[in-house]
C-alpha cells in the first residue's frame, strides 16, 4: 500500500512537470515536428455539428409528423394544457375577469387586491404558528406594494405558482418511476445532467418555436431548468430509506401503491423537501430569462431598468424577486414541517375551518369596499417609495472617490492571478490536456470514468470550440478558486456558530436569488467590461454552495467523535483542523462541485460583459437565432461540467471511504 502511494506520487509529479514542459515549449515542439495541429485543432477537421443540429430542429418543427398530427401540433397541445391553469391564476392575481380581448377588454371582476393577498398569506402563515414567519410574510408583501412592484410581482407569482407544482409533481413521478426501474434510471440520469448543465439560452429558441411565443414557453423553460433536483432528491430519498421500514410495510399487507404513497414517500418527506426548495429557488432564478420570451413580470422590469441604467429600479425589482423567493421557500418549509394532522378531531365543521371562513369573509368585504374606496383595491401612489436616486448616488460616490483604488486592486489580481491561469489553459496543447483528463478519470473511476472523459473532451475538440472551452475553464477555474477561498471559511464559521449561520443563510439566499443582471451594471461601472467583471459576477452567484455545504459538513460530524477528541485533550484549534475539517472534507468537496456547476451555469451571463468563452458562443447563437450554434456550444458547457462533476464526486467518495463515513 505504501509503495503504491509513493509510485503514485512520482507519477503525479512527473506528469505535472511534463504538463509545464508542454506549456512552456508547446510552440517549439509543434514547430519542430511541423505539426501545428497540436496547438490548434485544424478548422477543416471540425465537424459541422451546428449545421446538422439546426437542420434537424427545423425538420422536427416544420415537417415531422406522426400521421394523425404533426410534431408541432403535439407540442402546441401541451402548451395549451399548461396554459389553462396559468390563465386562471393570472385572472385571480393580476388581470381579473375580462370581457373581450386586447384594449376592448372590460374588467368585469377585478383581481384580488393587495389587502386580500396579504390576508391570504397571513392566514397561511398563521397555520404554521410561527410568529417570526407571520411577521416576515407580511413585511415582504408590504414591500412589494410600497416599492411599486405589485403588478409585476403578481404576474411573476402566477408563473411560479404554476411552474413549481408541475415541476415538483413531474419530478416526483419520474423519481418514483426510476426508483422502481433501474433501466429508466440509467436513461434518465444523463438527460437530467444535460437539463441542468446546458445553458437555458441554448434551448430558448427551439422552445419558442415549438410551444409558441409567450408565457407558456417561459413556463416550460422554467420547468426544464428547475425540475432535475426534484427527480434526483426523490431517487436519493427512496434509496436511503431503511429497508426494515419497507419490509414492515410489506408484512402489514401494503399493496405496491400503498407502500409507495403511504409509507415510502411520507417517510422520505424531509429529503423531498430539499428538492421542493430547490425547484422554487431555481424557478425564481429563471424569472429574468423567462421574461425575455414573453413572461413579463419582474424579470422584464429588471431588464428594462438596466437598459435605462436605472440601477435603483433594477435593485428594487431584483429584491422583489428575492422577497418572493423567501416567502415561498419559508412557507413551504414551514408547512412541510407541520405535524401531520391527527385524524379528524371531533370539532364542529365551522370551528375546524374557521380561519378559512374568516378569510372568505375578509376577501369579500375587501372586494366590496374596493368598489367605494380605491385604497382597498390598489395601493395608493402617495405611499409608494422610490429609492432610485439613493442607489444612483451611492454608486456615483464610490465611482468618483474609489475608482482608482479599485482599478489598482483589479490590476494586481489580473496580472498575478488571472492572466497566468489563462495563459496556462490556452498554452497546454489539447492532445496532452485530453490525455491528462482521461488519466485522472482512470485514477478515480477506472475504465468507465476514463472513457467518459475521453469521449466528451474529444467531442469538444471536434466542434472546433476548444479555445473557447479553455477560456471557459480559466474563467470558471479562477472564480471557483476565489469563491472557495471566501466561501469555505464563511461556511466553517456558520458551521460552528448558530447566529452566524442564520445571518449567512439569509445572505446566501439573497445572493442566489437576486438576479445577476441587477449587480452587473454597477460592477461594470466600477471595473469596466472584461474578464474581471465577469469573474466577480460568477463569484457572487456561485459562492452559496461552498458556504452551505461546508457548514452542513461541519454540523453533521458525529458527536461522539467530537467528544472523544475533547476527552483526549484537543484544543479548539486542534479540534477544528485535525478532526472537524478532515471529516467535513468530502462534504466540502461536494460544495466545490456545486460551485463549479453554478459557475458554469452563469457562463452565458458573463458573455453580457464581453468575455470570449463558450457562454459568448451560446449568446451569439441566441441573438442570431442560430439554433444549432447555441445548442452545440451549450452541449460543450454541459460536457465540461459533467466531467468536473464525475471526477469530483469520485474523489469525494474515495475520501469518504478513507475516513469511514457512511
Amino acid at each position, binding site marked *: 500500500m505504501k509503495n503504491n502511494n509513493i509510485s503514485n506520487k512520482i507519477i503525479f509529479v512527473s506528469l505535472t512537470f511534463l504538463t509545464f514542459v508542454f506549456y512552456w515549449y508547446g510552440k517549439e515542439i509543434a514547430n519542430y515536428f511541423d505539426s501545428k495541429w497540436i496547438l490548434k485543432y485544424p478548422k477543416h477537421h471540425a465537424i459541422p455539428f451546428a449545421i446538422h443540429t439546426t437542420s434537424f430542429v427545423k425538420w422536427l418543427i416544420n415537417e415531422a409528423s406522426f400521421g394523425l398530427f404533426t410534431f408541432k401540433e403535439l407540442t402546441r397541445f401541451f402548451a395549451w394544457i399548461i396554459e389553462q391553469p396559468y390563465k386562471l391564476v393570472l385572472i385571480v392575481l393580476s388581470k381579473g375577469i375580462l*370581457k*373581450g*380581448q*386586447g*384594449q*376592448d377588454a*372590460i374588467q368585469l371582476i377585478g383581481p384580488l387586491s393587495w389587502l386580500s393577498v396579504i390576508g391570504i398569506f397571513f392566514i397561511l402563515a398563521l397555520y404554521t404558528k410561527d410568529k417570526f414567519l407571520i411577521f416576515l410574510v407580511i413585511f415582504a408583501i408590504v414591500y412589494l406594494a410600497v416599492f411599486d412592484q405589485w403588478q409585476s410581482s403578481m404576474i411573476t407569482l402566477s408563473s411560479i405558482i404554476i411552474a413549481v407544482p408541475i415541476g415538483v409533481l413531474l419530478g416526483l413521478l419520474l423519481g418514483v418511476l426510476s426508483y422502481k426501474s433501474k433501466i429508466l434510471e440509467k436513461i434518465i440520469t444523463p438527460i437530467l445532467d444535460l437539463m441542468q448543465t446546458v445553458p437555458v439560452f441554448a434551448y*430558448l*429558441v427551439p422552445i*419558442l*418555436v415549438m410551444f*409558441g*411565443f*409567450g408565457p407558456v414557453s417561459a413556463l416550460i423553460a422554467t420547468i426544464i431548468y428547475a425540475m432535475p433536483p426534484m427527480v434526483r432528491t426523490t431517487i436519493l430519498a427512496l434509496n436511503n430509506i431503511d429497508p426494515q421500514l419497507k419490509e414492515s410495510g410489506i408484512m402489514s399487507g401494503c399493496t405496491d401503491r400503498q407502500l409507495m404513497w403511504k409509507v415510502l414517500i411520507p417517510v422520505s418527506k424531509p429529503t423531498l423537501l430539499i428538492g421542493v426548495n430547490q425547484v422554487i429557488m431555481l424557478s425564481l432564478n429563471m424569472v429574468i430569462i423567462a*421574461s*425575455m*420570451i*414573453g413572461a*413579463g413580470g419582474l424579470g*422584464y422590469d429588471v*431588464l*428594462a431598468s*438596466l*437598459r*435605462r*441604467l436605472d440601477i435603483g429600479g433594477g435593485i428594487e425589482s431584483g429584491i422583489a424577486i428575492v422577497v418572493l423567493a423567501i416567502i415561498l421557500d419559508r412557507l413551504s418549509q414551514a408547512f412541510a414541517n407541520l405535524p401531520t394532522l391527527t385524524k379528524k378531531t371531533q370539532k364542529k365543521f365551522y370551528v375546524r375551518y374557521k380561519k378559512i371562513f374568516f378569510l372568505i369573509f375578509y376577501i369579500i368585504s375587501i372586494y366590496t369596499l374596493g*368598489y*367605494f374606496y380605491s385604497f382597498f383595491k390598489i395601493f395608493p401612489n402617495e405611499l409608494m417609495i422610490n429609492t432610485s436616486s439613493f442607489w444612483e448616488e451611492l454608486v*456615483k460616490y464610490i*465611482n*468618483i472617490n474609489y*475608482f482608482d483604488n479599485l*482599478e489598482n486592486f483589479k*490590476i494586481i489580481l*489580473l496580472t498575478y492571478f488571472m492572466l497566468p491561469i489563462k495563459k496556462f489553459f490556452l498554452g497546454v496543447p489539447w492532445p496532452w490536456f485530453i490525455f491528462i483528463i482521461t488519466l485522472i478519470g482512470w485514477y478515480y473511476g477506472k475504465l468507465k470514468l476514463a472513457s467518459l472523459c475521453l469521449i466528451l473532451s474529444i467531442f469538444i475538440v471536434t466542434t472546433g470550440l476548444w479555445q473557447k472551452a479553455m477560456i471557459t475553464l480559466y474563467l470558471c477555474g479562477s472564480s471557483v478558486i476565489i469563491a472557495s477561498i471566501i466561501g469555505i471559511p464563511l461556511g466553517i464559521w456558520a458551521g460552528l456558530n448558530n447566529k452566524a449561520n442564520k445571518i449567512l443563510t439569509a445572505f446566501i439566499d439573497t445572493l442566489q436569488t437576486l438576479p445577476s*443582471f441587477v449587480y*452587473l*451594471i*454597477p460592477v*461594470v*461601472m*466600477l471595473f*469596466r*467590461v*472584461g474578464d474581471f467583471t465577469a469573474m466577480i459576477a460568477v463569484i457572487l452567484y456561485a459562492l452559496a454552495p461552498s458556504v452551505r455545504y461546508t457548514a452542513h459538513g461541519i454540523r453533521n460530524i458525529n458527536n461522539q467523535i467530537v467528544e472523544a477528541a475533547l476527552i483526549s485533550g484537543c484544543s479548539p484549534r486542534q479540534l477544528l483542523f485535525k478532526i472537524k475539517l478532515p471529516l467535513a472534507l468530502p462534504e466540502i468537496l461536494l460544495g466545490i462541485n456545486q460551485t463549479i456547476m453554478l459557475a458554469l451555469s452563469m457562463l452565458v451571463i*458573463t*458573455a*453580457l*460583459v*464581453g*468575455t*470570449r468563452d463558450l457562454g*459568448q458562443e451560446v*449568446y*451569439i447563437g*441566441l*441573438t*442570431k*437565432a442560430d439554433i444549432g450554434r447555441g445548442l452545440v456550444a451549450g452541449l460543450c458547457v454541459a460536457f465540461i461540467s459533467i466531467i468536473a462533476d464525475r471526477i469530483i464526486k469520485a474523489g469525494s467518495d474515495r475520501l469518504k471511504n478513507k475516513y469511514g463515513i457512511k
Partner: protein
Amino acid sequence: MKIIKKRISILLSLIFFLFAQNIYAVESKDPIKLTLHDWTGQLITTNIMAEVLKEAGYNVELIPADYIAQFAGLQTGDLHVAMEMWETTGRDAIDEYTADGRVVNVGSTGMDAIEEWWYPSYMKEKCPGLPNWEALNDCAEAFSTLETSPKGRYLGGPVTWGGYDDERVEALDLDWEVIHAGTDGALFAELESAYQRKAPIMLWVYAPHWAPSKYSGEFVDFPPYTTECYTDPSWGINKNSAYDCGKPRGPIWKVASSMLKDKWPGAYDAVEAFTLDSNEMGNLVAAVDLDGNTVDAVVAEWMVNNKDRWGSWIK
C-alpha cells in the same frame, strides 16, 4: 354617488359593446399583437402604432418580447408586428426569417440609425483635432488605460452587432485596441461611469438613443461609408484593405408576420404608412428618459399634436 354613476356608465358601455361590435368596419376583432422591447424609442414607436390602430378600430395587444427571439413568434403568427428592426443589428435575422415569406419586411420607419465611434465633449480639450478621425492616432495615449497603454481603448459593441471595428482599426492603421462590451447595458454603464469621473472614453454609440441627448459629445468623422468601401479593398485611403471608412447608416425597418396582411389588410397598410423621423424620435425619447415623463403621456401628446399625420395612415 359619483362612483356609482361611473359604474352605471361602464355597465352601459358594456351593453353597448355587446350589441354594437360592428360599429367599425375592420376585418377582424381578434387582437393584433405588437411586440415591446426594452428600449424607450421602441416603446414609443410601438405605442404610437398601437394608438393609431386603435383609432382605426382594431383590437391591439402589446407583448414584451426579446428583439431576436420574437422572430420565432412572428413566423408562427403568435405575434404580428415588430416596429423596430435596425438594419445595423437586425439584418441577419430579417434575412433569415423573411426568406420563406412567413415574415415580411413592411418597409422603413423613416428613422435612420447612426452607429459610430463617439466621445464626450470634455475629451476635446485633450484631443483638439477631433472629430476628424485623423486625430485619433495623435491622442491614442489620452484614451488609453493601463491595460491597453500606449494604445487607445475603444469600447465596441457586442460581437453580435458586427460593425467591423477590428478591421477598421487595421485598415486605417489606428493605434487603438478594440474591446467588446457584451451588451449595450454594459456599454452605457461604462459611459456613465467615465462621464461621472470626466475620465477618457471612446465608445460605440448609436442613435436614436437617449445617450446622445443625456451626455454631450460627438461622433467621430470617418471617411463616409459606401458599399465599395466594405467590398472593394482598392477603394479609399488604404488601397489594400476594405473597411477603411465609417459605419453604414441604415434605416430602421418594420417587420410583420405574413398573417397581418392576410387577416388585417387595413392594419397592414397603416403599419406600412407609419413614418417618424430620427430627430422627432430623439426628442420623444429625451422627453421620457431625461424629463421623466411616462411613455403613455408622451405618446398621448404626440397623438394630439399629429392628428393629420396619423389620420392619413389609416384612411
